[in-house]
């Protein structure tokens, strides 16, 4: 009886020391709470070499500790963290911790997404960003939810990616612009495959093609050969024609979106389609004429502004007297130069 009592006492002491942190897992936890991740790592790696390795909580803690280590290869540590959480879930036969572990996994996986966003928006390292985004999705489906619906995430990510490519295309040398615009369009295509009426993806695609068309005309060396010029007008035509369906869809979605109207107007102008060009130009001129006239009052020597006023009074809102008046003003200004 005394022997049995001793055994029971020993067991209680043992359990007590484990519960109060004298086990490797307990020690690791104490280090972790003190933000001493290096010591926590040593302790938890010791724990999994002992009988404690059969405890799902040990593996959960290992995941948490590895996830917190910022020194060294953080991606490698993140991978170890994920493997630890997954193993914790495996040995948690009763499923006691499943929800909690899945939450840990989810919170760890989101870091791949955050990396993708940071690489995209801050570092502008697009290729690496795409790698991380794909990695995020791949791991999410393999570790957490094979049937997860990424549509909303894809729309957000690829819309932003398309816009970033587009923005970069505006600041790189001419020779590199179209490559980036094509990448922008490809990113938008991924969005449109999910939602063909997504405004932003349609708009960004339309603008990419429109800008491409404009650059075929604007960008060439002034001493261009006639063969190249003929080819460029053909290329510009193709680009403007490709832009229109996307922009028309934008117009359906947001009929009053001003940049869409300007881009459509530019496409039809470039395509020498006066009927459609004038429709958009007239609509815009009705809005803009008061602004131009007001600007003339404050900036009477702004030649571009006066040219716009003359154009409006000549073509879209004809008023020959006014047109002649501003024509004279413009010529007088030029004579003074």
């Amino acid at each position, binding site marked *: 009886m005394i022997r049995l009592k001793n055994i029971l006492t020993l067991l209680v002491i043992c359990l007590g020391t484990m519960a109060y942190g004298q086990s490797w897992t307990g020690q690791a936890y104490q280090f972790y709470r003190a933000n001493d991740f290096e010591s926590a790592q040593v302790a938890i790696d010791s724990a999994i070499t002992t009988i404690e390795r059969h405890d799902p909580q040990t593996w959960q803690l290992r995941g948490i500790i590895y996830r917190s280590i910022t020194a060294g290869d953080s991606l490698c540590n993140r991978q170890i963290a994920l493997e630890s959480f997954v193993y914790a879930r495996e040995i948690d036969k009763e499923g006691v911790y499943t929800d909690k572990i899945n939450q840990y996994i989810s919170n760890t996986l989101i870091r791949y997404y955050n990396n993708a*966003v940071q690489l995209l928006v801050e570092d502008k390292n697009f290729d690496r960003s795409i790698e991380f985004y794909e990695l995020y999705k791949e791991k999410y489906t393999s570790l957490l939810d094979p049937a997860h619906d990424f549509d909303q995430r894809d729309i957000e990510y690829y819309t*932003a990616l398309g*816009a970033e490519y*587009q923005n970069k295309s505006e600041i790189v040398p001419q020779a590199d612009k179209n490559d980036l615009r094509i990448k922008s369009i490809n990113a938008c295509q991924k969005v449109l495959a999910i939602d063909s009426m997504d405004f932003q993806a349609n708009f960004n695609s339309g*603008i990419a093609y429109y800008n491409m068309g404009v650059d075929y*005309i604007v960008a060439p060396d*002034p001493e261009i050969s006639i063969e190249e*010029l*003929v080819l460029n007008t053909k290329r510009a035509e193709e680009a403007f024609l490709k832009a229109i369906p996307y922009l028309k869809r934008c117009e359906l979605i947001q009929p009053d979106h001003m940049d869409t109207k300007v881009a459509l107007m530019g496409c039809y102008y470039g395509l*020498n389609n006066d009927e459609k060009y004038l429709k958009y130009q007239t609509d815009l001129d009705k809005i803009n004429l008061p602004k131009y006239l007001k600007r003339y009052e404050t900036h009477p020597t702004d030649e571009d502004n006066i040219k716009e006023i003359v154009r409006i009074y000549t073509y879209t809102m004809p008023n020959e007297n006014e047109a002649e008046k501003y024509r004279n003003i413009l010529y007088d200004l030029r004579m003074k130069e």
Partner: protein
Amino acid sequence: MTFSLTRLSAETNQMKDTRSMVKALYIYTFATLVEWPPDRRSGDFIIGVYGFGGLDVYDELKSRYSEKYIGSQEIVIQNFRNKNDINPKSHILFVASEKSKEIVVLSKSMQQNNTLLVAESEGSLKTGACVNFIVVGNQQKYEVNKRNANKHNLVISSKLTDLAAKVVQ
């Protein structure tokens, strides 16, 4: 914590006057593909633009070609508001559409100065223009009247006629 992606939008190029740019580029190539008589191959190479409607073409030409050369001749771009202002020494005269009715007269008066008359109105080849801008489908193209050019003692290269939408022999 999830980092959020704002839905960045692309920026539109401001509406560019692509038509005037194309015309300006073509006018330059005409200058390189037409042969002027020997006595017009020295001094400045004058490209004139006649009419307010050609102001954008003039601005494009000026920004792209001022101080550049055709052979050894420096390009000078000029804009003429009235017929009396037109520089008779112009090698090329681009006539804006609102002045197209004057091409008949201009053709005669500029003939002796070997001026390449370039127009942008339907039927201008018949009234005396050597080259006329036309729209074919969605594209800016040009047509050539070799006979009118010959009257002005100008030789138009085969490259220019080969790529023309129409050639009047």
